[in-house]
């Protein structure tokens, strides 16, 4: 049964209009109107997305045992050549629909939340305009039918992220963070772009329908051509993965994400936790058949980078004291999980459990991480500080925030029956099937996750009661409602879909049943509980143990606290090497050597003319002398040389 999905074009377009309205006229109108317009459009988009999901999964449903890829809309945007065409299209398949739901849901919650959080801010309209722009770009990204369309929206989410991180543009640190985020991701995007170029060169197509057809000719193209021992397709996919790694802040592009917390907290929740940062994961998932079939080496890179990042970020998260940074590093860690799951996945229904798990984790993570960030926002709003050293005992003042935050923490720690447990379990299953080394890495990471999250939780809500400037109070309904909604989602999105998620999303679109592997799950619960109890021991009641441990570990602690000095390394490379060793010399070279050469030509001309100018002295006698001597010489010449 076919269905007309053309209305889906409205989902992004509405948001685009909201953006245009707010950016052009929002400043001069009442801020309330701007907020209402944005919120209304995103809510409409959310409703449309749910409707689409319902239609797609239940009305259209399975055709010959698998889900169809539906092109709901397609328009030629640009012809590069006869075969290389950039379309603007809407591709509906299980993962894009899931992303539609995730993005519109989280975005709606953030829109509502921001009514309270951003209340009274100067740039209220601007904020909502940028939120609309972001939602538009993100939705455009997830429904892309063409890799180039994806690249286009990829850049647009990058710029919305830039604008929102730099929202407090008068704060130099925010500006610096925005610039850093944009430039780092742009550098990674160069990899994406070159990857696209390679793919276009090898396959002659940019269309996902062609590129991801597992039986298509693309899977064999580019396999023969080699460069440094890897096939061209492998290189292309590694480059594309670099783009994804940049956006998902995988190691070594992770440095921008913690700094990005300079943006308003709702933005961190929306962009830097739930949606934009998973774009990299989504990209790999989108091209999954290509990764798995045409370039297994590239897929292994995905696994390794994802696995390493998850552990690396978890270690750093332990020592951070800024609550948003802790959450940022935990985001990194969880994104690493998703990447690793994709890297470990096989192709097919059962073998592709990693794929399903990754998407599932993406889904649940979006819910509980948005919840955690919004909760953190609520706390910051109340306490006016980001540092957990300024907090403690908040459970008494902010009951709703406390409960919802606890739910989120349990979810991320992987305690059943909360969402994170189920998706993380499937990821561990997938890793167990594929690589024991990375399996153990992720198990350890799970323990660390539980530890640092509960360290955060205990420090903020328990521990000793700090002295506050004014008594913290619970936030308004516009802020607590999204918290409660997301807490509800964080509970049900795992268990509720328990035996159903595989029925919706699988690597080859064929639904299958998934079930809990209690052997693996048991271990992960055990590790998580160890982490929690350790955290409780150290931080539930104020005790000096943690500081003692920190001093005992000394340099290790310091290195971890300073994020292993990656920022410094990057700073060194950009400022010392690129600025001072390339840019400054080339500017100098241009002014002095190239331009100097031109000036030298001018100088020579000037000099020569100055010298011969002496001949035109204006002195009659000089002229006369030249004239006579010339005449004499000519006479001599004609008389004595010409005649003989």
């Amino acid at each position, binding site marked *: 049964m076919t269905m007309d999905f053309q209305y889906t074009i409205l989902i992004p377009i509405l948001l685009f209009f909201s953006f245009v309205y707010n950016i052009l006229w929002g400043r001069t109108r009442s801020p309330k109107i701007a907020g209402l317009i944005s919120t209304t459009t995103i809510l409409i988009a959310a409703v449309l997305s749910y409707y689409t999901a319902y239609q797609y999964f239940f009305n259209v449903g399975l055709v010959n045992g698998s889900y169809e890829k539906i092109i709901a809309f397609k328009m030629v945007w640009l012809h590069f050549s006869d075969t290389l065409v950039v379309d603007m299209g809407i591709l509906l398949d299980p993962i894009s629909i899931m992303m539609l739901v995730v993005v519109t849901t989280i975005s709606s919650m953030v829109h509502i939340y921001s009514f309270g959080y951003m209340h009274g801010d100067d740039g209220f309209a601007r904020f909502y305009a940028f939120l609309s722009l972001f939602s538009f770009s993100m939705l455009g990204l997830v429904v892309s039918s063409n890799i180039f369309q994806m690249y286009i929206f990829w850049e647009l989410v990058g710029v919305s992220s830039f604008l929102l991180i730099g929202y407090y543009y008068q704060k130099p640190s925010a500006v610096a963070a925005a610039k850093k985020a944009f430039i780092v991701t742009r550098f990674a995007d160069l990899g994406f772009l070159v990857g696209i170029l390679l793919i276009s060169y090898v396959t002659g197509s940019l269309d996902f329908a062609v590129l991801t057809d597992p039986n298509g000719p693309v899977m064999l193209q580019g396999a023969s051509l080699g460069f440094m021992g890897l096939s061209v397709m492998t290189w292309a996919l590694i480059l594309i993965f670099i783009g994804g790694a940049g956006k998902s802040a995988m190691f070594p592009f992770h440095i921008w994400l913690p700094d990005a917390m300079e943006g308003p907290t709702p933005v961190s929740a929306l962009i830097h936790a739930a949606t934009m940062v998973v774009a990299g994961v989504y990209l790999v998932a989108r091209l999954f058949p290509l990764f798995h079939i045409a370039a297994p080496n590239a897929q292994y890179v995905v696994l390794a980078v994802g696995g390493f990042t998850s552990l690396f970020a978890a270690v750093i998260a332990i020592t951070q004291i800024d609550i948003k940074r802790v959450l940022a590093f935990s985001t990194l860690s969880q994104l690493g999980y998703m990447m690793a799951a994709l890297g470990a996945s096989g192709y097919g229904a059962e073998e592709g459990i990693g794929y399903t798990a990754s998407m599932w984790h993406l889904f649940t993570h979006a819910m509980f991480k948005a919840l955690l960030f919004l909760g953190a926002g609520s706390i910051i709003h109340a306490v006016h500080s980001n540092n957990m050293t300024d907090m403690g005992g908040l459970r008494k003042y902010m009951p709703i925030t406390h409960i919802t935050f606890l739910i989120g923490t349990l979810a991320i720690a992987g305690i059943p029956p909360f969402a994170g447990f189920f998706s993380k379990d499937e990821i561990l299953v997938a890793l167990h099937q594929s690589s024991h080394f990375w399996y153990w890495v992720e198990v350890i990471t799970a323990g660390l996750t539980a530890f640092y999250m509960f360290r955060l939780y205990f420090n903020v809500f328990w521990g000793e009661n700090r002295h506050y400037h004014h008594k913290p109070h619970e936030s308004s309904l516009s802020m607590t409602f999204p918290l409660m909604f997301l807490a509800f989602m964080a509970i049900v999105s795992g268990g509720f879909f328990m035996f159903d998620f595989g029925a919706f999303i699988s690597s080859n679109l064929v639904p299958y049943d998934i079930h809990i592997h209690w052997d693996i799950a048991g271990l992960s619960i055990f590790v998580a509980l160890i982490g929690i109890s350790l955290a409780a021991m150290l931080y539930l009641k104020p005790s000096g143990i943690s500081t003692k441990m920190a001093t005992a570990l000394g340099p290790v602690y310091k290195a971890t606290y300073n994020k292993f000095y990656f920022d410094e390394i990057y700073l060194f490379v950009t400022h010392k090497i690129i600025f001072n060793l390339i840019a400054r010399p080339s500017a100098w070279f241009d002014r002095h050597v190239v331009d100097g050469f031109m000036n030298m030509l001018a100088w020579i001309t000037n000099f020569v003319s100055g010298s011969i100018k002496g001949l035109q002295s204006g002195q009659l006698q000089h002229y006369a*002398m030249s004239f*006579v*001597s010339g*005449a*004499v010489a000519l*006479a*001599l010449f004609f*008389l004595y040389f010409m005649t003989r």
Partner: protein
Amino acid sequence: MEQYVFYILAAIILVFSFLTVTSRMILRAAVYLLFVLIATSGIYFMLNYNFLAAVQLTVYAGGIAVLIVFSVLLTSQLNEKMEQVSLTKALAGGLIAFAGALLTILTIVQYNFRPNGLPELEPSPREIGHAMLNYGDNGYVLPFEVISVLLLAAMVGAIIIAKRPAKLLNEDRTIIDTSYPSDKNAYTSRTKAEIDSLLK
């Protein structure tokens, strides 16, 4: 006899020509020039061109030389020696002049002049007057008229030039850049000191 007279005249011409161009006293140079001009008229006499010789004496030796002496008196300090000619300039000029003279003389000596041998014409002032105003063959009325117009023009010009009032004598105006708008130093390479020394 005539031969020796010629040699004497030639010697006078050459010696005083040389002195004219080398003397550092300007009035003396003018007088030496006068001698040269007179000696030249002597040569004309010897060639039997009496009218021409007379003209030479009156116009040249009488008119022009006096004019020059006058202008010398008007413009120069008489008891002041002119500055020494710089050696390079003298050498260069001398060399060129010498080379030119040598070349010319060599050519003259080598060339075989052939007179046409026809009977000589001795012009009397009367014949000259006729030829001057004749417009037929051997008539010179056209150059004569042209010369008269030229003389008139020269006369008028000389009067006008000499009558023009002195333009700048006050100090705040420069001699060079009167036509330029403001920043005189932008357009001239002269320093203030140079201009001042010129004005002195």
